[in-house]
């Protein structure tokens, strides 16, 4: 019966020119139809208020809502229709499955979209390649991994411009790839432009929600679910450590680059210089955050997750942790004879991180931010429905 209904829906959709849904998208549409008739979860996050503005869920709606979902798990535990109920409503898992699909659908180049589904392998190859590349480069350029101490002068190992060019190219490619991906996504889900509508407040609201991780607060401020139906703020906090740690490390790199080119100040920078302070603080955050997120991920209620994404989630978390750990090890050992080896290892890991940015978990931040922007644009518009009971 349900199968027949699905077929009928598909046929009707094709007849009106609507895009047919994948199985995972169909599951989201099916469960949202149930949620929209219930609405008990409206207070938890943005997904349900966004849902109530709709009566039906087409491909664009599903892609938008899947990326708006933060996988906090609150609705699963509160759901009167969750398994073993025959309606088998499981929004966090259904959304997660579509989310990874959208990363692939919109990826640039399209051919590499499949990497999201093989994120573990992708990550392993990138890491092996990155490490091999820099270790071989040290050997090729210096003939030895261990050397007389060089007082922290990295550029005695690799010329500055070589590093800048290598990482610059990869990083710019990663940003362009993600930019093209999210632009394609936005074109599909765009709320359109209305005359007289300004975007400032919406952009501000989206930035606020993204930077504060508003939708990991459970709607009541006590946090999201992890192991069970109890709420915890740990995920939000560890994510803050991770994100802000990452941003501090990024800031350190930017400041160092400005020092290099504008002020003609060259590395190594002293321990109390701005780049080192930023990098160290960020590095510590990037140790605590990913370690905590990995711990939470291992304990997370498997029912609310898409099991096939564990390699992507955990691989990215591990890579962030290794980036930080190797960076801090390099800082600690930069005055020793092991600097070249430590540098090669760190650079290899960072290269792997940069290479996989557009084909792994990092994408969630970009797509989530776009979905939040759409949410903020849409919620400032009057609803097109008048459902009467109000």
């Amino acid at each position: 019966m349900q199968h027949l209904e699905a077929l009928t829906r598909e046929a009707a959709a094709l007849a009106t020119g609507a895009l047919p849904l994948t199985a995972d998208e169909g599951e989201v549409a099916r469960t949202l139809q149930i949620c929209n008739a219930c609405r008990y979860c409206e207070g938890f996050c943005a997904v349900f208020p966004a849902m109530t503005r709709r009566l039906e869920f087409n491909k664009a709606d599903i892609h938008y809502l899947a990326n708006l979902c933060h996988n906090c798990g609150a609705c699963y535990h509160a759901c009167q229709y969750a398994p073993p109920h025959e309606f088998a409503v499981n929004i966090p898992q259904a959304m997660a499955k579509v989310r990874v699909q959208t990363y692939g659908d919109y990826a640039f180049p399209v051919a590499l979209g499949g990497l999201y589904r093989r994120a573990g392998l992708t990550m392993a190859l990138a890491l092996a390649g990155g490490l091999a590349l820099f270790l071989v480069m040290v050997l090729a350029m210096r003939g030895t991994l261990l050397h007389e101490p060089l007082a922290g002068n990295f550029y005695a190992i690799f010329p500055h411009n070589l590093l800048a060019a290598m990482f610059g190219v990869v990083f710019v490619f990663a940003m362009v790839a993600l930019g093209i991906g999210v632009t394609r996504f936005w074109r599909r889900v765009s709320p359109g432009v209305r005359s007289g509508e300004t975007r400032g407040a919406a952009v501000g609201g989206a930035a606020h929600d993204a930077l504060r991780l508003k939708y990991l607060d459970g709607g009541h401020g006590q946090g999201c679910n992890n192991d069970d139906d109890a709420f915890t703020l740990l995920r939000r906090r560890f994510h803050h450590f991770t994100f802000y740690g990452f941003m501090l490390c990024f800031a350190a790199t930017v400041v160092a680059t400005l020092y290099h080119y504008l002020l003609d100040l060259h590395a190594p920078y002293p321990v109390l210089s701005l780049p080192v302070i930023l990098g160290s603080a960020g590095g510590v955050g990037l140790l605590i955050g990913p370690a905590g997120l990995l711990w939470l991920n291992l304990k997370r209620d498997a029912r609310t997750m898409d099991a096939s994404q564990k390699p992507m989630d955990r691989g990215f978390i591990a890579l962030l942790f290794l980036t930080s750990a190797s960076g801090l090890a390099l800082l600690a050992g930069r005055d020793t004879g092991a600097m070249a080896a430590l540098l090669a290892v760190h650079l290899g890991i960072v290269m792997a991180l940069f290479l996989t940015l557009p084909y792994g978990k990092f994408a969630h931040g970009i797509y989530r931010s776009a979905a939040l922007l759409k949410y903020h644009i849409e919620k400032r518009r009057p609803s097109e429905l008048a459902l009467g009971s109000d």
Partner: protein
Amino acid sequence: MIDVLVIGGGNAALCAALMAREAGASVMLLEAAPREWRGGNSSHTRNLRCMHDAPQDVLVDAYPEEEYWQDLLKVTGGLTDEKLARLAIRASSTCRDWMRSHGVHFQPPLSGALHVARTNAFFMGGGKALVNAYFRSAEKLGVQIRYNSPVDAIELDGDRFVAARIGAERIEARACVLAAGGFESNREWLREAWGRNERGEWPADNFLIRGTRFNMGVLLKFMIEAGADAIGDPSQSHCVAIDARAPLYDGGICTRIDCVSLGVVLNANAERFYDEGEDFWPKRYAIWGRLVAQQPQQIGYSIIDAKAVGRFMPPVFPGVRADTLPELARKLGLDEATFMRTIGDYNAACRVGKFDHTVLDDCHTEGVTPAKTHWARPIDTAPFFGYALRPGITFTYLGLKVDEHAAVHFGGKPSRNLFVAGEMMAGNVLGKGYTAGVGMAIGTAFGRIAGTEAAKAAAKAASVGAAASREKEYATS
């Protein structure tokens, strides 16, 4: 020996267990369901009707005691007990801080429920979130919780509770709270209570149960047969018209069909049978269960046209859709000629003024029986939709008679250590009818009272028992 044994795992049972534990009693809670189905009908609830004299966090304006009482008096048609009702009403004005302390979160009304913004405080995430919070709190406080533990008998010594039995297992306690729900899941009992109609049908065979499958009424029946005083009519139940495709149990809120007042409702003979536009749907949905139950085959068909789409809460299942009315009749399995005549008569009778589904508008019928007094517009714009309706039972009203201490009564006398709360006694306050959030108000108030009283009774029994054993020691030494 345990001090307080709580039988049941819904809101009232949890309130009782938490209060008893807070009063220092050792508490065991027996839930008949497995963990994943715990909470009974409370898992399907969403709000608490609250008295308040001034705006209170999520509640706007005021909802004074007197107005609440008048509302209750109106919906029950006087089948209530003023003293107990006012007790529950007053308790609803002060219980929420206690609820919060056990992890319940409140939120402003859900979309589609703004009509109760003044009177009802919504649980964030709904009743299952509330049940989860209470179970977590109970576990943390050291309440022993056992799932898959359906009590089938109570051992009494006169009016005194001695032990509960689960099959061959016997659990003694100094006091007990019964909060195991009504009998709405028991189809045999419903069949018997509703009986056979003049068409020779057993109407209850076509009912769906909106809530839990675990409220079999075993303890209710046991207690009544053991001589406990009962209250309420077994054929009374909260009964609404829901989607006929809803599951047999646990369809909950989402199976409601909210388009009745925007179209017409036909029975199996393709004829109209009641004024669909009598009042706003939230004020009428509860009478439609019984209306449909009285129709042949206990089925109704809500028919709307394209003009109604987007003006009612989206239903859980898509409607049966057709591009013409005859096609819709065929798809619904209704007699095409009668269907067309009924719709034709109705359409011709419509006097369309200024349609507005948010007020009692002036669109009505003239010269058709039954009349449709508001929102009457011809059904003439394709596509057309049909939704089959069945009676859906939310809960039953038959219960045990109580006093303000929630004590079970035998022959008009209260038991010293046996108490009852929730659906098993809601009929004291709610003899019939319903108004949103009042079930949870009664369950919370009497659950808390029962827990407190049971802890007191247990403490008394313990001290009496200790004194008795001391005396015994003296006697033997």
